């Protein structure tokens, strides 16, 4: 297996390199801490590959610009944080409804509002799920290491293309800014997915066709298909409709297209869960503290394990439930006031009580704090 030489790489850089490896050739965005490095790296690297970078006048521009680019057939990325992600929400809904593949990296910072630009947080978990108005499917991936920033950005681009959907990569400031020694896989070792394009003649093309795959083919603008894209409710042809039965059928397809493929979308990791009586559910940088806590507590003979959802949305609920056999208590440490805890509670409450460990003061959750919480529920 060919490997690149090990380097000391920052999480944000790993995201940028992952995107490029996955074939992203268009970036539009607006600088904001702690995500700015991604834009800077893309501005330097994209032209070398014949790709395009543009610094837009605001984050709404960044988001909408990549959607325009995606319609010409490009794989696209934007990156932002806190206030910038809030600004992008309307356009993320557009991407969901018009089914335009795109990846949004959110390097989470302390909020609400300007909050703490350089402080870490995990306060955007529910925003990623419900930030834009109206029901819509979303995929959000949550790396816990620099290596995963690379690999999961590749996965995010692949998912966006395969399922014609916006995909978030949710970092937190710690993951975005930390440096680790890594060897990324060579591009030749990666599975790279391109969107399905129509093979029918333009007259037969239905950009929102309801078939058993639930994912319609997407024609590049400029290739003669002359199709219509709108954020209005539309029928199979892409044109606006007010017919309730058609709206119903299209929205159901939209929601089901992610659910149908959950088996191939869902990602998670579990550590020491086989005999675990206390289960920690953690993600992002918090999961790193949880791993350390599990290791330390295990040396004391405490039966504790970790379940780490990597796809936060959709949430790997079946996988989590399969780990609960001996579990007497679940702990969810998060750098927010209890966002994923709600989801964990929904999934597990008939099996075991769920306690949150919340910290929102600009500081990371330490292994000691996680250990103390475990001891508290013992």
């Amino acid at each position, binding site marked *: 297996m060919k490997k690149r030489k090990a380097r000391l790489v920052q999480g944000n850089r790993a995201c940028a390199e992952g995107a490029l490896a996955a074939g992203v050739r268009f970036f539009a965005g607006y600088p904001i801490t702690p995500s700015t490095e991604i834009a800077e790296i893309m501005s330097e690297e994209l032209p070398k590959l014949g790709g395009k970078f543009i610094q837009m006048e605001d984050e709404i521009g960044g988001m909408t610009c990549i959607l*325009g680019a995606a319609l010409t057939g490009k794989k696209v990325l934007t990156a932002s944080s806190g206030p910038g992600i809030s600004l992008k929400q309307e356009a993320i809904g557009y991407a969901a409804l018009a089914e335009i593949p795109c990846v949004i990296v959110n390097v989470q910072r302390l909020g609400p509002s300007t909050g703490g630009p350089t402080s870490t947080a995990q306060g955007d978990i529910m925003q990623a799920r419900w930030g834009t108005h109206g029901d819509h499917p979303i995929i959000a991936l949550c790396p816990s290491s620099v290596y995963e920033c690379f690999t999961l950005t590749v996965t995010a681009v692949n998912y966006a293309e395969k399922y014609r959907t916006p995909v978030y990569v949710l970092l937190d400031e710690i993951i975005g800014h930390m440096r680790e020694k890594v060897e990324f896989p060579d591009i030749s070792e990666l599975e790279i997915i391109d969107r399905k394009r129509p093979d029918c003649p333009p007259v037969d093309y239905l950009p929102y066709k309801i078939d058993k795959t639930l994912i319609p083919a997407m024609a590049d603008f400029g290739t003669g*298909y002359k199709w219509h894209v709108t954020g209005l409710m539309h029928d199979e042809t892409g044109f606006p409709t007010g017919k309730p039965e058609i709206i119903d059928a299209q929205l159901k397809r939209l929601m089901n297209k992610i659910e149908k493929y959950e088996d191939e979308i869902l990602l998670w990791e579990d550590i020491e869960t086989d005999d675990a009586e206390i289960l920690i559910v953690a993600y992002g940088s918090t999961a790193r503290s949880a791993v350390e806590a599990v290791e330390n507590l295990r040396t004391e003979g405490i039966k504790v394990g970790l379940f780490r959802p990597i796809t936060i949305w959709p949430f790997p609920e079946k996988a989590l439930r399969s780990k609960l056999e001996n579990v007497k208590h679940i702990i969810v440490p998060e750098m927010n006031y209890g966002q994923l805890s709600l989801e964990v509670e929904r999934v597990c409450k008939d099996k075991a009580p769920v306690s949150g460990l919340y910290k929102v003061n600009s500081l990371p959750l330490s292994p000691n704090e996680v250990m103390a919480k475990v001891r508290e529920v013992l």
Partner: protein
Amino acid sequence: MRPDLQHLFRMEKLPHIWCPGCGHGIITRAIAEAINESGIDLDKTVIVSGIGCSSRAPGYMNFDTLHTLHGRALAFATGVKLANPELNVFVITGDGDATAIGGNHFIHAARRNIDLTVILFNNNIYGMTGGQYSPLTPTGKMAATSPYGNPENNFDVAALAIAAGASFVARGTAFHDKLLVNSIKEGIKNKGFSLIEALSMCPTSYGRRNKMGSAADMIKHLKDNAVNVVTAQKLPPEKLEGKFLIGTLHYKPYREFTEEYDKLIARVQKEGK
């Protein structure tokens, strides 16, 4: 519909949703005519719009069409054009769409001088939402949200575009049909940001409230108050009082963004080797 223009429309989508007497249909037809006469590749043409009555036009037009979000047409179009500069990219937008919610994208697209042909359907009002005032509603005029007369100052959008860096700016009207078609053709030819301000009329939401009479009266108003820029040069200032200029207001070819970016790529790739 003229037979020679029918292939540019999605005939099955007609009739359109606009009110009787609305100026937007005339301007849409003028765009089709200009595209037809300019001979550009129809398969390589994309029409982008925002949200508003005007922004519904692309749905009737037989191209790759992109009906976006209120105010964001220019940002979407920037992505389309930069990602594939081969495409001819048109933007159809309203006065509210372009200069209120989309004002930031408007000045920056003009500043970049990105090669877009922008047709701004100016009916001086938010038509779609029922007649609230826009940044192009003249001071003092009645609107659903200015029941005592508009207390705000209005933009001169052509001057705004020129100041921001657009390389081609023209004004036409729904009455001066031929001139409008020519202006759009000039805009297509210009390699850069081209703004064609097309004065439209909204009898439903603007004319009625401002006692401007029927649609025919409104179109007569456009006819009576327009002065061609060439003619205007020969007229004393008092003759231009209360009038507006039509024709090419500004033409200054200038470095265009997507071409410059391609040069940048070529330079970086050469230096990298």
